[in-house]
């Protein structure tokens, strides 16, 4: 057998004699391997993001809503109408304006204008301060009425935190978060006239465990003490923070007014995934989050709009949903055969129903059991297709880079064979077989490319780390992919080393010894 260690040492010595050329060849290889590692990391990151999206889309989420959406249901087939967003009251008022941020001066408002505004909605009614479509969001008692009105198609709110506590005891339940939701206007000190119309979520500290797509660029979410203590603290969605304080401003510690009450900002909520960008009008990032207890205290509410539950595993969701239904019927003392005063839906059903006209939503609700599978499958399918396209692109870049790196290695070795022809001749004269010579050059090629591979892995780790950190791309480097990258580099070195090695091995010792 060939004394491998000795040959490796020889190869290393030979490479170190030409440090500059060796360094450049290693660099070429490192670029290729770095690109490979980065693209694999980004690909895996994207896959994780998709899995997160699916979890976030609610494979294991159950929402119990006050009121009964399911009492009447028609079955409709395939003609699902293109979803549209929740109608924004401002859009109803000013359908073509696209206006969101408005300056409002109640003092300058004439009754006539308000009359006209009321008229624009097609309803003639007596204008009262609390009925002002803007101002009523700023008034706790009016907000309470609005909250009640929204709590279940006009019925009284029926869910309580005691219900939530009871649900928490069902086996298989992971997190339970009570919710009160409202459309509200927020502003900051000195800008009372520039109010931002947004979603208000009264919630609990565990919500980020359910919204797995969240990150906190600044601060944190509400903590349990703040929730129990009914503190006036607030977590801001990215969009709200951008509009109140400007982009890239850390809002933590600042004060935001809601219902004319000061709330201290404890955190900023952003999106973890490139697949879900915060947008104006969305329910998660164009929103403010405050303790549900604080909301109930300020608005003098005792009921909840909904309770959000996650199960420990996706497979349990249906079973747990049924148990929740049974439990609440018992707690609300609803006789068998009577319609319930609440609705239990999985998140998938929720998503499907969202944005549909009420009658369509009822119908969809009835059909949703069979639809959630389809929709989740569709969602994951399209995300994965997009992901594959991106991965293919990155893999293409990585392949080309690796090819270029391999050519660099080959180039260096061909040069080396020419420069070291006499050495090859001498080695042959003193007894080196052709295979010995070939092995030595192939080892040099492999050493070069493995060195390039190691540098490349390091560069790839740094690159994907920076992409993740500074551009918020999801990247996931596994030690397996790092090892694979080095192996790929070694194989490339071998392949591209074979031709120069053959050239060296086929030298005629006499000619080689004469070579100058």
């Amino acid at each position, binding site marked *: *057998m060939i004394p491998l*260690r000795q*040959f490796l040492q020889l190869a290393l010595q030979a490479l170190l004699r030409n440090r500059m050329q060796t360094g450049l060849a290693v660099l070429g290889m490192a670029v290729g391997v770095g690109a490979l590692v980065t693209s694999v990391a980004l690909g895996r990151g994207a896959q994780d993001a998709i899995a997160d999206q699916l979890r976030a889309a609610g494979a294991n989420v159950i929402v119990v809503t006050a009121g009964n959406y399911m009492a009447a249901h028609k079955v409709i087939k395939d003609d699902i109408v293109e979803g549209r967003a929740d109608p924004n009251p401002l859009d109803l008022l000013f359908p073509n304006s696209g206006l969101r941020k408005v300056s409002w001066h109640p003092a300058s408002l004439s009754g006539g204008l308000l009359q006209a505004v009321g008229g624009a909605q097609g309803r003639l009614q007596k204008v009262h301060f609390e009925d002002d479509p803007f101002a009523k969001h700023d008034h706790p008692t009016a907000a309470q009425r609005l909250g009640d009105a929204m709590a279940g198609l006009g019925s009284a709110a029926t869910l309580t935190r005691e219900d939530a506590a009871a649900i928490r005891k069902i086996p298989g339940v992971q997190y339970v978060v009570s919710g009160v939701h409202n459309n509200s206007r927020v502003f900051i000190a000195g800008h009372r006239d520039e109010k931002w119309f947004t979603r208000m979520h009264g919630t609990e500290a565990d919500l980020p465990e359910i919204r797995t797509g969240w990150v906190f660029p600044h601060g944190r979410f509400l903590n349990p003490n703040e929730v129990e203590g009914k503190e006036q603290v607030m977590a801001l969605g990215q969009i709200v923070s951008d509009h109140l304080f400007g982009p890239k401003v850390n809002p933590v510690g600042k004060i935001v007014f809601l219902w004319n009450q000061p709330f201290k900002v404890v955190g900023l909520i952003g999106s973890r995934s490139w697949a879900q960008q915060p947008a104006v009008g969305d329910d998660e990032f164009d929103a403010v989050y405050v303790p549900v207890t604080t909301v109930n205290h300020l608005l003098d509410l005792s009921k909840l709009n909904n309770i959000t539950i996650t199960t420990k595993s996706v497979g349990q969701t249906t079973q747990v949903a049924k148990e929740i239904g049974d439990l609440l019927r018992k707690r609300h003392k609803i006789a068998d055969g009577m319609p319930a005063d609440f609705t239990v839906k999985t998140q998938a059903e929720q998503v499907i129903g969202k944005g549909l006209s009420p009658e369509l939503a009822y119908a969809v609700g009835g059909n949703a059991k069979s639809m959630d599978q389809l929709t989740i499958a569709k969602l994951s399918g399209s995300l994965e297709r997009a992901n594959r396209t991106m991965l293919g692109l990155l893999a293409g870049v990585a392949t080309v880079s690796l090819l270029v790196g391999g050519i660099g290695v080959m180039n260096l070795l061909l040069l080396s064979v020419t420069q070291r022809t006499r050495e090859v001749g*001498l080695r042959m*004269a*003193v007894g080196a077989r052709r295979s010995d010579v070939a092995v030595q050059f192939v080892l040099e090629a492999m050493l070069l490319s493995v060195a390039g591979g190691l540098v490349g892995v390091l560069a790839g780790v740094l690159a994907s780390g920076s992409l993740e950190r500074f551009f918020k791309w999801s990247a996931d480097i596994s030690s397996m992919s790092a090892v694979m990258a080095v192996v790929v580099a070694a194989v490339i070195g071998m392949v591209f080393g074979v031709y120069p090695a053959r050239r060296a091995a086929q030298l005629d*010792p006499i000619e080689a010894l004469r070579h100058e």
Partner: protein
Amino acid sequence: MPVISLQNLKKSYKLGDNTVHALRGASLDIEAGEFVTITGPSGSGKSTLMHILGCLDRPTDGKYLLNDRDVSNLSRDELAAIRNKQIGFVFQGFNLLPRTTAVENVEVPLLYSRPAMPAIERRKLALAALKSMGLEERAHHHPSQLSGGQQQRVAIARALVNQPSLILADEPTGNLDTKTSIEVMRILQELRERRAITIVLITHEPDIAAYGTRIISVRDGAIVSDKPNDPTPALEHVAEVEAPRMAANGI
């Protein structure tokens, strides 16, 4: 039994449309312990003869028995093994690997020994060979840190390290001054006298040829003369050459 036995050895090769007959039938026996010098003008075929003797090339026709084994038709790898074990080469240009220490240069033939030799063993043999050349203190010097004579002695140590029966020296003094040349010749003479190593040396200088025990002249691919020689004693010769120089230097 002769170490080398050539029987009507021929070598021709094509150069464009012409066939060049480098050797036109050489027959020759060299016994163990001979110091044969081969002389001839350039183009006489002495280099071709040397390459065939050194198993670097194969004859077109005829037979070459090395230590009684016909090596005329062996494969390249078989020839490599024979070069490794039985022949030590000393070249005009030393052919030491640059940026490689003397002892590592001497180890090179041992790298290709089969079965593989442990590193410690290789180092031991290489140091012993260097010591026999009086270079043990230079073992870790690079060729560029050594004089021409020292470099050639490293090369001789390398030729000796596998304990070959035959040393082939191709113009070993071509790059050396007279004094150093004589030193190298003395080393070769001592190798023959003390270790009974057979030496074949190629040169175009008659006074170098005179150090051998037998002088063969080659011309136009054929042996034109082959006669025993009373070798010039290199030991005294050094003193002879040195005396006037030392006197000139006032020693």
